[in-house]
């Protein structure tokens, strides 16, 4: 790659980092995508919409307004095959790869987007240290024939845009680090390891009643209805180690 010229990529990255509004950032990202044959941009956080109000989740796109509204439903978010695939994928992938594994409802979500002429594209998953943050999808009426280098160029520009926008528009409510106190997290961590309240009390050198109250407090904070729900919620919220 000795004669490779990455000037356009660097220029796009610097332009995006200099933007101060979401509209400007999306417009610049869209312009970069267009030069590769993509006409549409969709950028969104991947969080469980059953846990977080939709209004608190970052979604930005240059999609038609009607489609934006339709896509922004709990059902569409939960069953979107591209989003589900992004959670597991370490690399960018074409929408077609994700569609192959779509559920029946997932295919309906795909068809909904197809109806607006956005039929093919590529997803760039955004991973953070402990979990996935979100993804950037570039789409259009066809999938351009891209080299590995071009995919990498798009990936680094999407990455820059995504985290620039999260920083610009955040902090988002669910990004809070610690909802549980250290003691609550400790008790839930032991509960996750299958320990009873009596065992946790002995390990931590506190009274069994204190463990019970601490776990009840944790349940209230995470809106959990029982011990299993508490453990799964704590893991999902990054409050304890899986």
């Amino acid at each position: 790659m000795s004669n490779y010229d990455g000037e356009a990529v660097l220029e796009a990255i610097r332009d995006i980092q200099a933007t101060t509004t979401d509209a400007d950032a999306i417009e610049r990202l869209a312009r970069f995508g267009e030069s590769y044959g993509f006409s549409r941009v969709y950028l969104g956080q991947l969080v469980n919409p059953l846990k977080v109000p939709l209004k608190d989740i970052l979604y930005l796109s240059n999609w038609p307004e009607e489609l934006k509204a339709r896509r922004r439903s709990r059902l569409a978010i939960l069953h979107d095959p591209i989003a589900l695939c992004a959670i597991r994928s370490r690399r960018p992938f074409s929408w077609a790869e994700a569609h192959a594994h779509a559920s029946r409802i997932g295919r309906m979500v795909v068809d909904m987007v197809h109806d607006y002429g956005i039929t093919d594209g590529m997803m760039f998953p955004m991973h953070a240290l402990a979990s996935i943050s979100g993804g950037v999808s570039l789409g259009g009426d066809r999938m351009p024939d891209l080299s590995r280098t071009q995919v990498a160029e798009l990936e680094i520009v999407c990455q820059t845009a995504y985290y620039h926008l999260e920083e610009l528009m955040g902090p988002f409510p669910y990004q809070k680090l610690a909802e549980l106190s250290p003691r609550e997290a400790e008790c839930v961590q032991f509960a996750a390891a299958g320990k009873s309240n009596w065992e946790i009390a002995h390990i931590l050198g506190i009274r069994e009643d204190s463990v019970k109250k601490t776990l009840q407090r944790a349940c209230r904070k995470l809106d959990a209805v029982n011990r299993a729900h508490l453990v799964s919620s704590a893991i999902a919220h990054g409050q304890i180690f899986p």
Partner: protein
Amino acid sequence: MFKIITPDNRGEYRELIHAMHEMRYRIVVEEWGWHIPGIRDGYDKDQFDTDKTVYVLVLSRDGHVLASSRLNPTVRPHMMSELFADYCDLQPYPVGEDVWECSRFVTDRKRMQDPVEDFRTRCRLGLGLTVWCLDHGVSRLSWLTHQKFYNLVQRVWSTEPLGLPRRDGDDWAWIPAVSKIDKATLDRQMDRYRDAEAIVAEYLAPKLRASA
């Protein structure tokens, strides 16, 4: 707290450095599965652990190494110049007295009580890096970052990629990057982390006393 071990005070911290190399091996080789040629079993010390290397360590209250990172001057052979020069296809890797390379940013997560402590430990490590750079006139840090770490680098420091993401097959990508270190970087880190002021004060306090 964090400890900064430089060529000048290295003699005082031989045991800590030893523990750091052992910790790095546990994480980097045993946990992450890296193959590092030329190192001995149980001890991650390679050709970039030199007599000029500066280490930033985060220690637990009882003195265990929780996290570590190393800094090397770019005016001498460093990882980017020796191993990853071809990764830098967007712009040449920077070299100069005011540019150092950061590598082996490692935290021992098994020692953490909870994810918050894990987060705070990384904060301390990042603050240690920034503070040392500011104190020594280092204006840029270069590093090869893991795809999952790049966002943190981008948020905390003003960062630009030096090259495109590189990956083997479907695996995670690596991104060479350069970050600007200035007062704003420190302010940003301090704003981000509620307890950052106390950490920096802890490091700066003896210096203030010394200069008073």
